[in-house]
């Protein structure tokens, strides 16, 4: 009996592919005689309740309020460091580094460009709240709340000074990264920032080998160059820089007035302290003026070159999109240029779509990338031109101050200021005298 059943089953198994129609079971469910019942399916684990998202957003607000207080009022590096480690622990290790404001840029971009996309509430909150805080208090998010900043800040042991021109040049990477992330998120093909998040693997103690290597290298660089990701790569940092220029309040090195003692000159590991400047010396002024004019004339050239370069990269950029890749593969297969199929082309054929429809879709996406790529190029050209110009103007400054854009609000410079010591002494006396 058993043997017979086996043989029948085997023959049936061989025949079924020919006989079976879609949506029909090849083997009818057995009618058991022994009273067997289907086992209860083990309850499937539920997803994280939405409530936690609200808790995360609330914790973000609390952390930012506390950070603003510690950075602007209390002015204590030790307290800021403590908060930073707590934030690293919660937003990093407990929450697995997701969602973060840096990645939320892409969710917001997708919301703008794709009307069918519903943004998670947490993503929207994580994008907007730090921006608002930056408008009021400067980059307090970078200083004490961002887990990516914190993990780099914690390993910084021997800061090396990076020349201003190099720092400014390297920062072009961050602008490019922001532009590319927005472009790819807008056309709906990829979330680059998440894909190449260097530290998320540490937070999860688990992850892709290549990205872990990238993260470790950034941390090794970070031993000597303070917060390399924040300064040269972070796309969210680019937005915060610009908003921080406008902020109502921000980090001041001295609590009262600067006495130009130069003690804080080397205090900042991120090169954000600007020394007082004189006007250009007579001879140099002329050269600088000429240089500025040249750069001003160069700006349209850079913008045009960027736009053209971005446009001509459209084929390559579009290849990031899975539909375009599938279309290219299917085309190669159908024109006989390659033999064999891939998973993607097989999957496409099972959908029953015509290849013409697929090609049309791919052409559309390529067109979008042509426009988007050109815009990306224009943006990069514009930023590069702006940077050249910014390097050749000199702003008059009468005291040592933290550069509003570059200052990461870590609070390291406070204790270098003799005026700060005076202030602390006074506070201590006031507290003690009470």
């Amino acid at each position, binding site marked *: *009996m058993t043997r017979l*059943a*086996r043989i029948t*089953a*085997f023959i049936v*198994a061989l025949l079924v*592919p020919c006989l079976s129609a879609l*949506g029909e*079971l*090849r*083997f*009818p*469910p*057995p009618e*058991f005689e*022994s009273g*067997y019942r*289907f086992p209860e*399916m*083990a309850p*499937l*684990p*539920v*997803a*994280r*309740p*939405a409530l936690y998202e609200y808790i995360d957003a609330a914790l973000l607000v609390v952390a930012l309020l506390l950070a603003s207080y510690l950075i602007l009022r209390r002015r204590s590096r030790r307290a800021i460091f403590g908060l930073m480690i707590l934030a690293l622990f919660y937003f990093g290790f407990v929450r697995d580094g*997701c*969602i973060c404001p840096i990645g939320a840029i*892409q969710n917001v971009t997708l*919301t703008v460009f794709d*009307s069918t*996309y*519903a*943004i*998670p*509430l947490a*993503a*929207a909150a994580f*994008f907007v709240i730090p921006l*608002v805080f930056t*408008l009021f208090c400067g980059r307090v998010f970078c200083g004490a709340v961002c887990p990516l900043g914190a993990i780099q800040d914690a390993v910084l042991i021997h800061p090396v000074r990076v020349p201003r021109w190099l720092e400014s040049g390297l920062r072009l990477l961050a602008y490019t990264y922001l532009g590319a992330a927005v472009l790819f998120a807008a056309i709906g093909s990829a*979330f680059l920032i*998440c894909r190449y998040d260097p530290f998320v*693997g540490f937070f*999860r103690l*688990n*992850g892709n080998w290549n990205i872990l290597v990238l993260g470790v290298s950034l941390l090794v660089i970070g031993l000597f160059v303070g917060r390399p990701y924040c300064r040269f790569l972070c796309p969210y940092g680019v937005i915060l820089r610009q908003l921080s220029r*406008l*902020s*109502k309040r921000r980090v001041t090195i001295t609590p009262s007035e600067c006495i130009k003692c130069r003690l804080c000159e080397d205090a900042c590991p991120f090169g954000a302290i600007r020394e007082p400047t004189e006007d250009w010396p007579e001879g140099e002024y002329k050269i600088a003026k000429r240089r500025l004019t040249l750069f001003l004339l160069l700006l349209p050239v850079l913008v045009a070159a960027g736009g053209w370069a971005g446009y001509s990269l459209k084929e390559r950029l579009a290849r990031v999109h*899975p539909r375009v890749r*599938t279309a290219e593969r299917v085309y190669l297969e159908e024109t006989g240029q390659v033999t064999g199929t*891939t*998973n*993607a082309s*097989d*999957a*496409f054929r*099972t959908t029953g779509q015509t290849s013409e429809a697929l090609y049309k879709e791919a052409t559309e996406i390529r067109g979008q990338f042509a426009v988007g790529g050109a815009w990306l190029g224009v943006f990069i050209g514009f930023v590069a031109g702006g940077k050249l110009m910014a390097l050749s103007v000199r702003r008059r400054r009468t005291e040592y101050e933290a550069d509003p854009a570059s200052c990461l609000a870590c609070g390291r410079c406070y204790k270098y200021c003799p005026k700060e010591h005076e202030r602390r002494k006074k506070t201590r006396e006031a507290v003690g005298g009470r």
Partner: protein
Amino acid sequence: MANDKENLTRRKFLREGLWGACLAGTGTAAGLSIARNNRDNTVWQIDPYKCIACGNCATFCVLENSAVKCVQAYAICGYCDLCTGYLVPEPKALDTGAENELCPTGAIKRTYVEDPYYEYTIDESLCNGCGKCVNGCAAFGNGSLFLQVRHDRCKNCNECAIAAACPSQAFKRVPADQPYLLKKVDAKE
């Protein structure tokens, strides 16, 4: 001197204006997000009818041990003796010997029910989501084995690494209160 002062106020005016514009901008972003939000939390899931069990789930997940596991829909299962999800295409013998098993981690348990039927159960702690059994079952069986994202393991990444690598666009975001896309029995008729 007077000129200087005027300049200062102009600069201040510009600054204030820009500041206001930025605040309005973030406000717009927030408003737009709230307007577009469907208030449903979403999570990643695999549409079993689109999945081609290519094996990417086992290798592309950000977790070393993938969040994707195989699920057995007993009501669809044929309880075959010669299970093509359990056994390699040409088994040396019809038994549970490791050389005959298709599953690379031995995560499928075969239990005798009654002649000629066998029950197949997934041991989730062993399953790595490679989909070999899914493929075998779909090719010659009823297709009762399929892959699902397990939400106790899934980190709900902003961009799912498996979704990005999925050749059949089987990954999609689903409401968090109904986080599974299970194969239904009524699909047979």
